[in-house]
């Protein structure tokens, strides 16, 4: 098979992967929107440079505290990994984690298809 043929055969697969990736991102955003509707919108108020200390944990609503406590323990994790600890659905944890990102308590990093959430303790000087 010529080089051009190989590239052509890979292209549709590549496009499909891109579509899937974009759909996953869209899905996460929709989960956040659903959560905004479900809970009080005030919870989602963003605080630039917010610190996830124990007093902040105490003042959080129960559903977010559970997720935040788990990420505190895990350090760096995907929604799937957090869901294994909290025994809640991955989609639910994904929504809560994204809420915590919006609120400024967590950072999110995407590596390939996986999104990793973590507390950026070192950069919060």
């Amino acid at each position, binding site marked *: 098979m010529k080089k051009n043929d190989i590239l052509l055969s890979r292209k549709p697969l590549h496009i499909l992967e891109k579509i899937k990736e974009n759909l996953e991102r869209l899905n996460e955003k929709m989960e956040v929107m659903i959560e905004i509707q479900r809970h009080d919108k005030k919870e989602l108020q963003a605080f630039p440079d917010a*610190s*996830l*200390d*124990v*007093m*902040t*944990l*105490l003042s959080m609503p*129960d559903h977010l*505290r*559970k997720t935040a*406590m788990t990420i*505190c*323990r895990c*350090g760096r994790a995907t929604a799937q990994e957090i869901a294994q600890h909290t025994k809640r659905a991955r989609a639910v944890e994904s929504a809560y984690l994204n809420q915590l990102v919006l609120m400024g308590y967590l950072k999110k990093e995407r590596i390939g298809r996986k999104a990793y959430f973590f*507390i950026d*303790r*070192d950069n*919060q*000087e």
Partner: protein
Amino acid sequence: MKKIIAVHSYKGGTGKTSLSVNLAASLAKRGRKVAILDLDFRAPSLFSILKMEKSTVWLNDYLNGASTISKILQKTNGKVVSNGKLFAGLANPATEAIRDMSAKDRKWEMRALGRLLSLRNSLLKEQDFDYILFDTSPGLQYSSINAIVAADLVVVATTCDRSDVDGTSRMLRELYNLFEKKTGVVLNKVLDANLNSKKEELNKRIKDVYQVPLLGLVPCFCELLKAQGNLIFVQDRPNHPFTKIMDEIAIRIEKDEI
């Protein structure tokens, strides 16, 4: 099973440090590798109880990010537990250090929580410790809540004092429940604790008021007061009833009977 245990109380003077040290010594006596850390930065006392006044390394430096936990932990000089199984991380008693630790902001406390949480990896996993005990300061101090969040089990030392009972029950309800922490209560300095009727009454009252399991009931021993903090009973008085109670609590913790 490896564990991080925080020993906490609502009020001061409930016997928290004595409980922490003797529990740590009891676990070490049973062949476990134990680290006891003094997180009471406002009133450090572990250095004095363990007779390690000449220490030059302090847990403050670890939490400040100026040192590693391996450099901070020191072997204790115990007799019974002298096989190198009990290590201590001491809080700096210098006035300047106490003032410095009292003036930390939320961001520092957040990083301190991260450093306490990382002990699970550095001590329990990498250095093969079996237990880490946090001796905390009483009440709702930042350092104490950090310790509670980082722990697997919280042992609450309390007395029959009315204000202690009220405060402890509120603390359990409004703090511990929110963090979903496994908790056990040790009722300390109990008068007439050897009477069976008294034991039953206290057991029932603990269940009703605190709604957490009773880990141990410690009578008020005059010998403890007379020792004036010079003795670690588990080590120095192996046959004393107080030592037996500490050993029973240690066994319950080991068997995860909470």
